[in-house]
């Protein structure tokens, strides 16, 4: 018993010692999965570490992983705010309403919500134009497929994901008019076994290039084993499939996180801001191209990336019809931001329906 008391005393002393250490600012992050996923959460954690590094001891960062998109998220953020967080980054779409609820209770805490569309006086949103990256890899996919069948493992039917499919399809179709897309929705962001099953199914139905909008690296492993191609999602995943990995869309959150924390520190941070940056601002980065891609295709892909970055090109440039054949964009017209953010239709040529 005496030893137990001693241990408790030591532990509590350590805990208080921790509280005694004070930084100017405390920034909290909540993740939908583990930062060890080598994907979505990993990149957010890279951003968090960049904040740690940029401000030295002045900013303390804390994070909570595997936070479900439910009332749990509210509980976790409330806990963070109560324990002194001045700013909270909620890094998944489904945290949208929990963020708004908690933000109402803590008007002095600054909230940043990734990929959402609802803001408040102390809530800003940020998202990356991943679809720009998908134009680049869509082109590569269209050029690399031999069976003219590209498999696409999608998570949830939200505008963000639909936008990615459309963008990739338009680019792939331009690169290879015979190309066909097969889409599987698995209704989860992170389930390696389910992602692997979906990829295997697509391969069994003839797909030889797999694209993904789910978080784990399981698809890359499956692609490597089956001898087909795939793309890194959120991070470079070449270590999981040295032969399968063509290139990756990398999420570059670090510059944004550092900038927003800096603004919060010097008082210039504003709520209600909706940031939507792409390749140009470095929020979307095209990874290293594999040697498997022929040089001319590499060049074309990089030209697309550069064109989009400089603003000379747009992923959605007319003429484009919707899936049912009704016109959407006239020749030369580009998509407006409202339609992009609320996109709930496939473009002409994609088979199947978006699940409701």
């Amino acid at each position, binding site marked *: 018993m005496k030893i137990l008391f001693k241990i408790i005393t030591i532990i509590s002393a350590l805990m208080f010692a921790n509280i005694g250490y004070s930084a100017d600012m405390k920034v909290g992050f909540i993740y939908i*999965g*583990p930062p*060890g*996923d*080598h994907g979505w959460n990993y990149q957010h954690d890279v951003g968090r570490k960049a904040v740690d590094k940029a401000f030295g001891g002045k900013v303390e960062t804390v994070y909570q992983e*595997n936070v479900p998109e439910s009332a749990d998220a509210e509980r976790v953020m409330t806990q963070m705010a109560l324990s002194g967080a001045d700013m909270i980054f909620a890094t998944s779409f489904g945290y949208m309403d929990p963020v708004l609820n908690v933000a109402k209770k803590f008007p002095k805490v600054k909230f940043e919500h990734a990929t959402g569309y609802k803001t408040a006086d102390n809530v800003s949103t940020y998202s990356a134009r991943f679809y720009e990256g998908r134009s680049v890899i869509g082109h590569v996919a269209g050029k690399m497929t031999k069976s003219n069948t590209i*498999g696409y493992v999608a998570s949830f039917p939200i505008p963000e994901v639909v936008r990615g499919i459309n963008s990739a399809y338009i680019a792939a179709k331009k690169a290879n008019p015979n190309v066909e897309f*097969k*889409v*599987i*929705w*698995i*209704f*989860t962001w*992170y*389930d*390696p*076994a*389910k992602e*692997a*099953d*979906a990829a*295997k*199914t*697509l391969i*069994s*139905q*003839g797909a030889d290039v797999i694209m993904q909008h789910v978080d*784990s*690296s*399981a698809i890359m*492993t*499956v692609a*490597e*084993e089956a001898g087909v191609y795939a793309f890194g999602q959120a991070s470079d995943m070449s*270590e*999981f499939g040295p032969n399968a990995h063509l290139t990756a869309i990398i999420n570059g959150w670090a510059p944004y996180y550092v900038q927003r924390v800096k603004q919060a520190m010097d008082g210039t941070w504003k709520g209600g801001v909706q940031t939507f940056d792409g390749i140009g601002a470095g929020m979307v980065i095209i990874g290293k191209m594999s040697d498997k891609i022929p040089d001319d295709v590499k060049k074309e892909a990089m030209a697309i990336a550069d064109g989009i970055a400089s603003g000379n090109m747009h992923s959605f440039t007319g003429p484009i019809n919707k899936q049912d054949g009704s016109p959407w964009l006239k020749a030369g017209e580009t998509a407006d931001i409202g339609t992009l953010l609320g996109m709930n239709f496939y473009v002409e040529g994609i*088979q*199947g*329906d978006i*699940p409701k």
Partner: protein
Amino acid sequence: MDFSEINIPILIASLIVTSTPLILAALGELIAEKSGILNLGVEGMMIMGAVSGFIIGVETGSAFSGLIGSAVGGALLSSLFAFIVLVMKANQVASGLALTIFGLGIAALLGHPYTGIAPPKFQSFSIPFLEDIPGLGVMFFQHDFVVYFSLIAAIATWYFLKYSRKGLILRSIGENHDVAHSLGYKVMATRFISIIFGGALAGLGGGYLSLVRVPQWTEGMTAGAGWIALALVVFSGWHPFRLLLGAYIFGGITILQLNLQAIGININIALLSMAPYLATILALVIISTSRFQRNKGAPKCLGVSFVKVT
């Protein structure tokens, strides 16, 4: 919409692969529950098996030793549970939940240096001559030996529980541990072995995930498979063959809906994903009606701590 694009033999083959970890984990849990132990830590033991199997597989360069390692890892974690519920007499439900949380955490810790590494290849175990049968060969005779092992394990479990004396003792302990104890049967030892066996099989199921089915290590990779295994035990009414059937139905729904989606059929995916759980609830309702009451198979002492009266 072209049904001919669905490759039926591959579909059947992949549903068998998808179901295998569930069968293994659920069989282990079935034995534990038959002895009166409700271990809700299946998810934790599976992930522990997944990580320890992966580590040992990578370190030794042999997928087979990896699988052995996964069973040992699951068994080790379950021995902790055995100590807590058998010796300390803690509440089994709470201890099992804690085991899941603990297992997920420690697996993440152990596996951290092993993300992004490819495990050694696992040889499939084709059955000579039979593997060459068109269609059937791909479906049934070109799997790895774990798939066949899971089938043999189901038959062995059934035979053990139904026909062997040891199985009868195990069941009697699960039904009424006081009576079994007064007859001189070793309640604690039997339950201890059952828990360890359950842990080893759950670990093997996890190892199958990380070494064969996915194959890689990622944090939280079991993603709820342990809970489905638990539901399967109830769904089966504690019968190994119904458990096998339930697992194949579950795997079948999973794989079929992926195939239907890929050929562009508009199906209600949310409803299909819900189906196994819905079936579990329905099964629970049916077996709790009075007609099934007598032989529904739930051990009477399930979840009750045994305290020796001297």
